[in-house]
């Protein structure tokens, strides 16, 4: 019973940075608290009331002191702020080679999808030394995806994507918590992340092999008849989606347009998602408002399917848009194993 931790494990590359900042503020805390408590005790011992009619000397202030205890904390605060921003930048900007994993929160579970199509519930697997970028959303209420051992956390917001990333530094099993109160079984919305060596991970992946997200997305792309307009070679009705991801897209500017002339948008996951859910929101230059594309809401494209479509669009290379008549591609024709476990 007395064997209990007071220090969480520090198992990612950002954890030591957070820890260093934490220790710095702890030192500040101890220093200033000790000063306050020490002076309180000291003054109590030195200046207790010795007689009922004792009247001490009446000071009214000292400009120097007052400026001092305004200026010094200000400087300390600025230092802490700047250091905090530096660590924050580490926490929010993922490296370019991070592996994408998609997380959907719902009452009361975490669903994870890997690019290879593997899925897990309330569990995640990662490789030591390999960065992972999570793109997170929710199907119902707010949740928050937290891995204390990695010092990372991000809310899952319905209708939007948020991201976090980490690079594990030691093999082990760590907690995943939901930290945003989400209803009755909030405290059961927990999971485990298993950090493995590369070889073990590959073994695990192959055991869980499924159709890749992008492959599933390609099927959806055909099934939902996206290909009829987003035809690649002919851009009369809709723009080509080839290699669109993370490009800057010039936006349509016509009469009464909300966007300024020459405005652009970065085609990140949030933009792709918005363009599927609300096609008229930000229309690419050269196309008319309102968009002729129908809106695909949750009943037509679930959050899971949305991730598959986006994975497909991200993987789409020049000239790879399928032909319009290719409506019924079988998985085997794409070289992926048939059937889903």
């Amino acid at each position, binding site marked *: 019973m007395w064997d209990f931790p007071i220090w969480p494990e520090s198992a990612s590359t950002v954890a030591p940075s957070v820890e260093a900042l934490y220790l710095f503020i702890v030192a500040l805390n101890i220093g200033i608290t000790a000063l306050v408590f020490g002076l309180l005790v000291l003054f109590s011992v030195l200046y207790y009331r010795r007689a009922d009619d004792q009247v001490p000397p009446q000071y009214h*202030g000292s400009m120097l002191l007052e400026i001092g205890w305004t200026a010094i904390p200000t400087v300390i605060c600025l230092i802490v*702020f700047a250091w905090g921003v530096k660590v*924050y930048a580490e*926490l929010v900007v993922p490296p370019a080679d991070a592996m994408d994993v998609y997380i959907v929160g719902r009452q009361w579970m975490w669903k994870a999808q890997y690019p290879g199509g593997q899925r897990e519930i309330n569990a995640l697997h990662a490789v030591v030394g390999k960065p992972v970028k999570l793109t997170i959303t929710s199907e119902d209420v707010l949740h928050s995806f937290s891995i204390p051992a990695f010092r990372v956390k991000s809310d899952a917001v319905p209708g939007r994507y948020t991201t976090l990333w980490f690079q594990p530094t030691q093999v082990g099993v760590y907690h995943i918590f939901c930290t945003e109160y989400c209803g009755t079984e909030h405290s059961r919305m927990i999971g485990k992340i298993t950090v493995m060596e590369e070889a073990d991970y590959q073994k695990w992946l192959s055991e869980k092999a499924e159709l890749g997200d992008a492959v599933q997305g390609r099927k959806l792309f055909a099934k939902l008849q996206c290909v009829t307009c987003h035809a690649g070679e002919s851009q009369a009705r809709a723009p080509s989606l080839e290699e669109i991801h993370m490009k800057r897209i010039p936006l349509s500017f016509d009469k009464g347009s909300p966007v300024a002339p020459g405005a652009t948008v970065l085609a990140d996951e949030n933009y792709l998602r918005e363009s599927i859910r609300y096609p008229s929101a930000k229309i690419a230059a050269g196309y008319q408002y309102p968009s002729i594309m129908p809106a695909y809401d949750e009943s037509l494209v679930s959050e899971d399917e949305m991730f598959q479509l986006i994975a497909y669009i991200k993987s789409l290379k020049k000239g790879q848009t399928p032909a319009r008549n290719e409506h019924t591609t079988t998985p085997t024709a794409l070289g992926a194993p048939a059937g889903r476990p």
Partner: protein
Amino acid sequence: MSTIITSAPPASAGSKDPGHGGGVDYLNHETSIASWLLTLDHKRIGILYLVAMSAMFVLGGFYASLIRAELITPKGDLMSSDFYNKSFTAHGVIMVFFVLIPLVPASLGNFMLPLMIGAKDVAFPRLNLISWYVYMIGAGFTLVALIGGGVDSGWTFYTPLSTTYLNSNVLLTATGLFILGFSSILTGLNFIVTIHRMRCPGMDWFRMPLFVWALYATSVIQLLGTPVIAITLALVGVERLLGVGIFDPRLGGDPILYQHLFWFYSHPAVYIMILPPLGVTNELISTFSRKPIFGYSMMAGASLAIAIFSFIVWAHHMFTSGLSPYAAMFFSLLTFSVAIPSGIKVFTWLATLFRGSISFDSPMLYAYGFIGLFTIGGMTGLFLSTLGTDIHFHDTYFVVAHFHYVMVGGAIVGFMGGLHFIWPKMFGRMYPEFPARMSAILIFVGFNLTFFPQFLVGYLGMPRRYHEYPDEFQVLNVFSSAGATVLGVGYLLPLLYLPWSVFFGEKAGRNPWGATTLDWTHTESPPTPHNFEETPVVTGEPYKYDTLFNKESALAGH
């Protein structure tokens, strides 16, 4: 305060003898129940608030004890998760909205403010009574919702959980809080006008006691912040009723907008809770060390600065919520701005104690407890305003510990200090000193035992509002629950000896503490119905102990 009063006899400072021969006072000039329920006297309204809030505090404390009992074991074995969620919601709603926000302004503020500035009453006595009734009506709605059925949204009512996914009494609770908001607004409005317009001749802005400054700053927040939460809760209600998606992303709305609007009020609300106790502590520190507050104008300015800055930092509650990173940096920087005036206050008290004549009556023990807990609470706030560390601490028990240090360690302990300080003025009787000191010490020790382990368990990553938790967090949680028992005893003692002392306590003189402000030097204990026999005229600064004691030499015989 050095005052000239033309006819009344000089106050006898430090005297514990009855100051007057059992004349008419505000307690005994009318005694029927109706005379209390229809009173326009600010002193009686203060006591009405005190009684109502004590009842609410006991109820909120009951829910807290349920929570701590459940968390002794990692498994959810004492109650269902649903009941647990309803318990922490009830604890949060009752403690935040019905206890902490009106705590000091509505009870001690109502009682002291006109006395301190030499007025016969607040500017709008009828409005003052109405605001108590509004409080009671709001409390009625909310209690029906919380006890008859329960609400499990958490006190923050985050959307879309509260608007779409819960089947509990969210609408009724929101209605209660909407009504309650007007009580807070009316009190704030009344105080501001009172301070501007009702000061007695010679009571310049810089001759006011610092508690009045704190009440002024608090009222500004109440006035400017509360309407926003009122309209926000109204929107939540309308969304539930009509199914309009103002905060529901499925219907085109934005759940983050709710958080912006909610915290625009609810962060400044923390300062509604803590500013008045900060003001009370000024009076305590000054009186019990017999020294003027060091740097009076800086202290007054710090109160106003906190009130203004508190409005520009709200998004630090949202660093992980999908807030834009640029906005996060902006709000992080602004958040540090409230740290500076808070620090100034603590250093100012230390400088005031320096070379003072410190006595350790129980109000002073509470004041010491306040300084200690407020310092820890304030300093741990640094972890949460700093972006790099807040990501880890957000929504963990670290946050729970931090805001309890400020809101309970700060607000409640400060309130207890103020209450003991004012008690002889309020009822003309002294409370028993020994249990009062015991209670001050028990509360300080129990509080630290309860909440310090929560910093540690929060650093380990234990999320808040968890009904069940992993095994390794158990030991710290057991410590915390044990401390809560000590804390409970500490709170229970005053509930026993304070009412006892109203009837059986030793009679108090007009100025048993040797304080210098008008409420002590120029009113009886308890005060007469109209406070002052003759309008006092103030000629000097507050906190002039040398003149008070040297002129009167009233203590010579004691």
